[in-house]
């Protein structure tokens, strides 16, 4: 408990935290608006919707929100190294581990909230910035809704989103077929990125090195896994691609390995598979293990 209180106070008392969060939100909204204004006329496909909402830029290894969460996590650990608190919290192993876990526990929800906030802001920005010719299928056509959303709507006595007042129009952006699942995956990815930031900074004992390692991880992991799959002859699992439609890194690796474009077809069942969740959390879990082992060898944080 004390560690959590400490970490919350630490995070709250720093101006850089708020600046970073604000910068992430602003960048995200701006990029989403720019991308939306360039959308071609006609009905908006599901993957494109997800791409707009998460403001995925092809060159970045991670979405903005995930990157922001990772930087926040890396700074949170780098702060301990550069400006150590009381020596008592650095000396014993249990206290160091407690501090690390406290940081993870605080950064996780913060990253999740950050992801949700960016989604909210991006939905509005996309809705406002979409050109007149672009139509969102889920608004007019109940058959384009995702299963859960249509269930909820029918239980509320509505046949489709169009029955709602016009102010709810942005909701259609997140209610398309397969989009909610992809967005939940995005939130999870942000949380995992935040944790990874803390852990990489703890391994490298520095915020900058931690962020660099964090940025290098997704392309390395993805291309490594893709190469491995190609060696063993297994095709790239379709579900993994479904889960990560917004990740530029995975697409880059995919295109490089298999050569050529490929239309992602998001499916609603992706998140229910525990294996995929495990695959997503595996890097963070492996890093946590390594960090705990390294802490045991260290004298200080």
């Amino acid at each position, binding site marked *: 408990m*004390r*560690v959590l*209180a*400490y970490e919350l*106070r*630490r995070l709250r*008392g*720093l*101006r*850089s935290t708020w600046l970073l969060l604000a910068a992430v939100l602003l960048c995200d909204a701006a990029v989403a608006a720019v991308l939306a204004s360039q959308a071609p006329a006609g009905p908006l496909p599901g993957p494109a919707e997800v791409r707009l909402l998460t403001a995925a830029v092809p060159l970045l290894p991670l979405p903005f929100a995930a990157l922001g969460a990772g930087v926040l996590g890396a700074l949170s650990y780098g*702060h301990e190294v*550069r*400006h*150590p*608190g*009381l*020596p*008592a*919290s*650095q*000396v*014993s192993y249990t206290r160091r581990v407690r501090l690390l876990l406290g940081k993870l526990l605080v950064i996780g929800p913060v990253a999740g909230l950050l992801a949700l906030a960016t989604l909210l802001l991006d939905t509005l920005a996309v809705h406002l910035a979409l050109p007149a010719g672009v139509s969102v299928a889920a608004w007019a056509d109940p058959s384009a809704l995702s299963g859960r959303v249509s269930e909820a709507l029918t239980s509320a006595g509505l046949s489709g989103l169009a029955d709602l007042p016009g102010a709810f129009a942005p909701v259609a952006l997140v209610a398309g077929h397969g989009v909610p699942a992809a967005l939940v995956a995005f939130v999870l990815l942000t949380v995992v990125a935040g944790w990874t930031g803390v852990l990489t900074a703890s391994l490298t004992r520095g915020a900058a090195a931690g962020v660099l390692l964090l940025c290098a991880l997704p392309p390395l992991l993805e291309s490594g896994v893709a190469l491995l799959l190609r060696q063993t002859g297994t095709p790239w699992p379709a579900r993994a691609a479904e889960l990560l439609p917004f990740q530029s890194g995975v697409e880059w690796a995919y295109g490089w390995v298999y050569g050529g474009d490929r239309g992602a077809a998001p499916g609603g069942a992706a998140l229910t598979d525990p294996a995929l969740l495990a695959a997503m959390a595996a890097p963070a879990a492996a890093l946590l293990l390594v960090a705990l082992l390294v802490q045991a060898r260290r*004298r*200080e944080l």
Partner: protein
Amino acid sequence: MIQITGLTKVCGKGAPPAVLDLTFDARPGLVTALLGPEGAGKSTALRLMLELERGQGVTLFDGRTYRRLRRPEREVGVLLPGPGEGAAAMAGHPGRKARSHLRMLAAVVGVPARRVDELLEQTRLAPVAGQRLRTFSPGMHRRLALAAALLGDPGTLLLDAPTEGLSPRNVEWFHSFLRSFAVAGGTVLVTTRTPQEAAQLADRVITLDRGRPVADQPVAEFCRTRLSPEVAVRGPQMARLADLLVSQGAEVRRDGGAGLAVAGIGRTEIGELAYRHGILLHELADRVVEQPAPKAALPVSSGRSGHIHAQPKPAAEPAEAEPAAPKPQDDATLPIQALPVASVATALSALAVVAPEPRAREDTAPTVAVDRLFWDGPSPGSGDREAATDLLLDDTVRLRRLTPKAAPAAAPATPDDHRSE
């Protein structure tokens, strides 16, 4: 009570050890100082005590190592220099405010926020509690770090160079605070570079030289062997004055071109003497001369402190080993050990005579402040106890746990304001 046994740190093969077999006790109610020049291994020793570095040796804080203490912040307060060199050391992140910094640390220790405000008052940081740390001066940083160390109300303080690079006012504040902390029953262990500070602050002085402990002395003995008061005199007729001073029983040596360094006679007496004989003076000033530290090559003391009160170790006092035979080389620039029967080198003749009436200096063992070493008044050596009681009566630095019911904003004895520094 801190028991330090055999602290050793070897950096690498072939390299000299950073700390070699450091053994002593820091007792409650006393200020113990680790004295040594830069690179002598003081900070390393302190970090070894806290097990922040790998090394050999055991340090017990009331019978437990620091790592095994149940609640270390509540038992041992630690002030280590923050990131940044010397005086630029920061107490925390530059973007934080002082109060939020302390509250954050209070959350770790598990003390209420009330304690934070108390400590801000006590360290005289209350008016600037809402300011960011980047606007703080070195003295404020250091006092904030002290406040952080005191959060858990520990009975032991470990401070690494607490007064280094601070203004004299802050140094004085730190000294009085640490003295009163010790008087209230706390154990204080500080490191310092200057022998003068060690003499002013500490009750025991442990001298380190290149990682080896070379002396472990009570402060009286330390002052006698390592510090000697002198009066610097400068003027055009120094030869005559030197003859007069020698006939008065003073110890005189040449100091530069037209100067004398006089020991064994007070400043006022020298002034009077010069006036009576019509000698023109350009300078007349007190100063403290530092004797060279004993060399590490001597046999290393390994006895526990406290057992050597009665028997001064010969290793600690090389000068007393042969009191009757002063060194033949007469280097005027080198400070000469003050002996009861002193060899006197006058400015002109370097004539050695036996002083007829040596002053009773050995009895006036000063314990608190170096400036009390000087014979200010007609009764030499009566001021040292006064200094101790002065500090005791100083309410502004009295510990909170000593006087729990004291008003938090006890009026300072002097309206000095540390914010201005």
